[in-house]
């Protein structure tokens, strides 16, 4: 498969998400689809399943999408967003158990080498 795994950063703070994506752009480049979402449905700090779903769709790749999430609700809202995808796509989105900023850079680096979704997630999770 020639497509590159997409990366989505999910943080309670839109600024943290945006900053993590800036670091990916600087350190990895633009060849990997990477974006960030943050903020609750009312615009405060928090996470929003609808925004996460739109984020997954915006970086969608046939190779799949790896999510880097911060605390608590970010993971649960990401799980809800994944459940809202159609069945064919659902299995190609994974949440990496890794720190958001470091994980995003490592995952994007791995993705840029043309690695599979499992390899991208494993690389982010193994970093320390």
């Amino acid at each position, binding site marked *: 498969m020639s497509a590159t795994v997409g990366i989505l950063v999910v943080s309670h703070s839109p600024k943290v998400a945006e900053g993590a994506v800036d670091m990916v752009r600087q350190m990895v480049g633009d060849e990997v689809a990477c974006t960030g979402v943050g903020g*609750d*449905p*009312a615009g*405060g700090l*928090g*996470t*929003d*399943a*609808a925004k996460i779903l739109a984020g997954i769709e915006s970086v969608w790749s046939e190779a799949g999408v790896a999510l880097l999430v911060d*605390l*608590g*609700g970010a993971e*649960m*809202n990401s*799980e*809800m967003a994944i459940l809202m995808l159609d069945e064919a796509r659902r299995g190609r989105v994974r949440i990496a158990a890794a720190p958001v900023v470091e994980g995003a850079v490592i995952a994007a680096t791995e993705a840029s080498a043309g690695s599979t979704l499992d390899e991208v997630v494993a690389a982010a999770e193994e970093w320390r």
Partner: protein
Amino acid sequence: MSNTLVLRLIEGMAGTIESHADQLTRLDQAIGDGDHGINMARGFKELAAQKAAIAALPLGEALKKAGMTLVMKVGGASGPLYGTLFIDMGKATPEAAPTLADLSVMLDAGIRGVKARGKAEVGMKTMLDVLCPVADTLRSLVDQNETDGLDERIIAAAGHALHRTTDMVAKRGRASFLGERSKGHLDPGACSSALLIGAVVGVLAPSSAR
């Protein structure tokens, strides 16, 4: 379950959450991130705004739509947790009007979903510490066919369970970062669960409303 009853359930839950939003927020400011009341009020306000469309659906579909509305509007961790409770109850809803035994099965299914979503069990100072004792009480009363005064016993079970969260040490959510310091406070999620159970019982069995 009639269309009117679903409308009244939504109104009852939304009204209770709105009138207790400040209390929930104060509890959450003590050990959480301080937004539980605001988030819940936003979600249940949206539920009330959509009550006519939701009540027009068969009960199972109505519960799923209500759950999805909460996921989309509550945010935080409560959105996916309460959303999953409603959605999974909806999936376990029979086509015919549910009996008390059906209601018990539905609640158990919702709770299984919440446990999986939150990777949580009883005793972790969460909403499960109210929902599980209530579901256990309902199941045992239905099994023994002791349905007289069931409403009052459900309310009592929820109240006792809520107060037991005060002495618990939080193992999930922002409160868990406090460790032992999370003791001495009611859990905000357990409190909103007890309020919602009170609201539901108040609609289904108005004599016990308080």
